């Protein structure tokens, strides 16, 4: 499909940041045909990361009033159909049916359908709030009033960010986590310990190694029962127990599904005219020895949206960046690049009492991941250099990595 084909039609299902980035990137790459972005929310693409952080705790409206891409939809003649669900996909006819009865035809289709919050599958699980959209965040924010008793289920990134935000707002917070430590899925223990200690210092209570067995509505409070036998009264219960990729549309249409909509390294699904990107898609990662992963992260959503756009126009761009995410909790910033769990050894670089950078090396001493926690100004430069070293397949001297006074950037030129 050439860029000059002004009569062509590209449809993007999903108006999150991935879909928005893809739409704008299509124009930036010269696509002159029609672009339609269909989303179930009323809002154009906006930034989700602040929803569990500044949007809750600082009432920072500006951070989610849209993003740079959405602001350009009008000027770039990108059509946004909001507040409407795509009911079905007919691949042979190249058409989509919308819930309001409309039909769209496409030459190329991008599925950027995102993910949905997983709900607790216990009696009363529907009484737990979940956070995914701005509407969810507004609802949660209206309930996080000073001195309210808040129980958070899940000690992953979202659970901890919610715990920090609720604490900042003056709530009394208890966090329940199934594993015996927090952040077990995404960060090494040394980092999890610093994060947990920081939360405890702010008054967050942890019940670790425990699951929730039921939530009951006792009219004046919610009663949360746990596997330890302990029960808790709560005004608000919020679950942060992961997300499930939105694959129903693709699955019913017969596309290959493999922990999300399955794509090759070019983000192309099992149907060559259909691409998938962002939280809903799993893809091959050439930079990570070809492992298949589905990433739920902001940078990945933007990067894949951009890459899918280029490849829909005939490009062949494989993976360009490593998995990376950040989190903010109180004044602590957490950043992880690469996959620490694949490493054989770890070298610690202490940049302050509560500022730690871990270098994760494979069996041959190659840097494969880095993880850091601390104030942003202490960790940011070093973790970015670490990312570049990973891309270079560098095998840095562990003694230099551990030496906080050593300028890491020197290793890039080596």
């Amino acid at each position, binding site marked *: 499909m050439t860029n000059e084909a002004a009569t062509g039609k590209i449809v993007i299902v999903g108006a999150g940041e991935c879909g928005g980035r893809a739409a704008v990137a299509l124009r930036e790459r010269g696509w002159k045909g029609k672009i339609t972005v269909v989303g179930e929310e009323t809002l154009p693409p906006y930034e989700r990361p602040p929803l569990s952080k500044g949007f809750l705790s600082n009432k920072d409206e500006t951070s989610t009033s849209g993003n*740079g891409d959405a602001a350009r939809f009008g000027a770039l003649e990108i059509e946004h159909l909001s507040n409407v669900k795509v009911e079905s996909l007919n691949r042979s006819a190249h058409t989509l049916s919308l819930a309001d009865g409309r039909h769209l035809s496409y030459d190329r289709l991008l599925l950027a359908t995102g993910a949905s919050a997983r709900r607790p599958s216990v009696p009363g699980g529907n009484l737990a709030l979940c956070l995914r959209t701005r509407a969810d965040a507004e609802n949660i924010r209206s309930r996080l009033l000073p001195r309210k008793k808040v129980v958070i289920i899940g000690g992953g990134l979202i659970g901890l960010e919610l715990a920090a935000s609720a604490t900042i707002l003056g709530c009394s917070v208890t966090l329940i986590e199934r594993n015996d430590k927090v952040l077990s899925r995404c960060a090494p223990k040394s980092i999890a310990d610093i994060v947990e200690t920081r939360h405890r210092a702010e008054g967050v209570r942890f019940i670790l190694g425990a699951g929730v067995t039921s939530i009951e509505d006792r009219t004046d409070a919610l009663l949360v029962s746990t596997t330890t036998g302990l029960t808790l009264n709560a005004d608000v219960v919020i679950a942060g127990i992961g997300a499930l990729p939105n694959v129903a549309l693709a699955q019913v249409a017969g596309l290959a599904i493999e922990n999300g909509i399955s794509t090759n390294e070019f983000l192309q699904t099992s149907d060559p005219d259909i691409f998938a990107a962002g939280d809903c898609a799993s893809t091959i990662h050439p930079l990570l020895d070809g492992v298949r992963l589905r990433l739920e992260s902001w940078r990945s959503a933007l990067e894949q949206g951009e890459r899918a756009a280029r490849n829909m126009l005939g490009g062949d761009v494989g993976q360009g960046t490593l998995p990376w995410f950040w989190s903010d909790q109180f004044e602590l910033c957490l950043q992880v690049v690469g996959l620490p769990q694949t490493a054989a050894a770890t070298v610690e670089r202490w940049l302050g009492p509560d500022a730690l950078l871990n270098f994760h090396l494979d069996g041959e001493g190659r840097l494969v991941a880095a993880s850091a926690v601390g104030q*942003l100004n202490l960790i*940011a*430069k070093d973790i970015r250099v670490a990312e570049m070293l990973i891309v270079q397949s560098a095998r840095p001297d562990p003694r230099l990595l551990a030496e906080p006074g050593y300028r890491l950037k020197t290793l890039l030129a080596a």
Partner: protein
Amino acid sequence: MMIGNWIDACAADDIETEDVIRFDHEGRTFAIYRTEDDRYFATAGQCTHEAVHLASGLVMGTIIECPKHNGRFDFTSGKAKGAPVCVDLRTFPVKVEDDRVYVQVDA
């Protein structure tokens, strides 16, 4: 151009080569850069995406990368280099005299 506009910000050696420091002046914050070949530049101190201090970020060549979300700017021109940043950074004239770095903050 009033001489009073030039503010003595730091010593030339306070900034490492290919690096950046933060400079605060009368309630405003700036980022001052030194290139590999000892040229000096100044921009607004915070990223145009979210209010994050750029001085915590990494300098590579003439690009400053925001420490938070990797938004990139060419600090010699202030030009935003693509998503997530789309608004350019304001730049300010810089001169070096007697090993001191001066920034013209009201330019």
